[in-house]
């Protein structure tokens, strides 16, 4: 239940809907039921948050892609000729977090969803660009998993805090 509530809170699911799920769960529904209902609620919140504000969503994703190139160049320039470990590693970690946060802040109705959309677009573009060299797919997918995790952290940081979660005893 805690995980479901945390997820719904982070994906900005309508608090009345969350309350309805808590109420129904208390009548003895199964964990499988709760997980299914949580998935549908999150998908619905993603659709509402991203599609109903599509211009803002597109702008945020475009800003993220632009920022990716900008930060890459700026960091390379600032650190040249020492873009190596450990500063290089720090930047490798920080850049997607910062971009996830920026993208999320630019689309406040669905920050985490927008950060996920941004990284999905980024990975899709990378895969498309390397379509003639299938050997690069593995590296992109491995790197993509890491980028997804770090971007999610940025998206979570951009999610506005709600009232504390109360779980009925």
């Amino acid at each position, binding site marked *: 239940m805690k995980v479901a509530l945390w997820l719904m809170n982070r994906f900005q699911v309508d*608090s009345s809907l969350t*309350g309805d799920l*808590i109420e129904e769960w208390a009548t003895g529904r199964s964990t499988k039921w709760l997980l299914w209902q949580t998935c549908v609620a999150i998908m619905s919140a993603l*659709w509402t948050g991203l599609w109903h504000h599509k211009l803002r969503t597109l702008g945020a994703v475009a800003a993220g892609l632009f920022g990716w190139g900008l930060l890459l160049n700026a960091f390379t320039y600032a650190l040249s000729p020492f873009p190596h470990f450990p500063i290089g590693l720090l930047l490798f970690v920080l850049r997607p977090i910062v971009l996830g946060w920026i993208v999320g802040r630019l689309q406040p109705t669905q920050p985490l969803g927008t950060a996920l959309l941004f990284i999905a677009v980024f990975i899709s573009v990378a895969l498309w660009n390397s379509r003639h060299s299938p050997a690069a797919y593995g590296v992109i997918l491995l790197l993509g998993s890491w980028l997804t995790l770090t971007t999610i952290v940025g998206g979570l940081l951009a999610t506005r805090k709600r009232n504390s979660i109360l779980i009925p005893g």
Partner: protein
Amino acid sequence: MHPSLSDSELLILLALVRLAPNAYGVPIAREIAERGKRNFALGRVYSVLERLEKKGLVRSELGEATAERGGRAKRFFHITARGLREIRATRESLIRMWDGVPQLEGGKA
């Protein structure tokens, strides 16, 4: 010409009429499951209700937050006069389509 209602929209509007004035997510989903024999996830119910609210067929108001709902308020939904007109128009159009078709009479295919 009335804008047509989808299957899920019609079921939810009918549930609102039956449950008035205490229609919120949980009883709406139960009413559709028990009477309509259809299972709608609560997220889907809210998604359809939001669409109906945008069309002006439904309005909503927040109730008071309660401890058994984890401090979340209930959102009560009410059908508008326009929503009632849409249901009637849909019913009339369905009846006209049904009327005089022998294949649709009786219970056997």
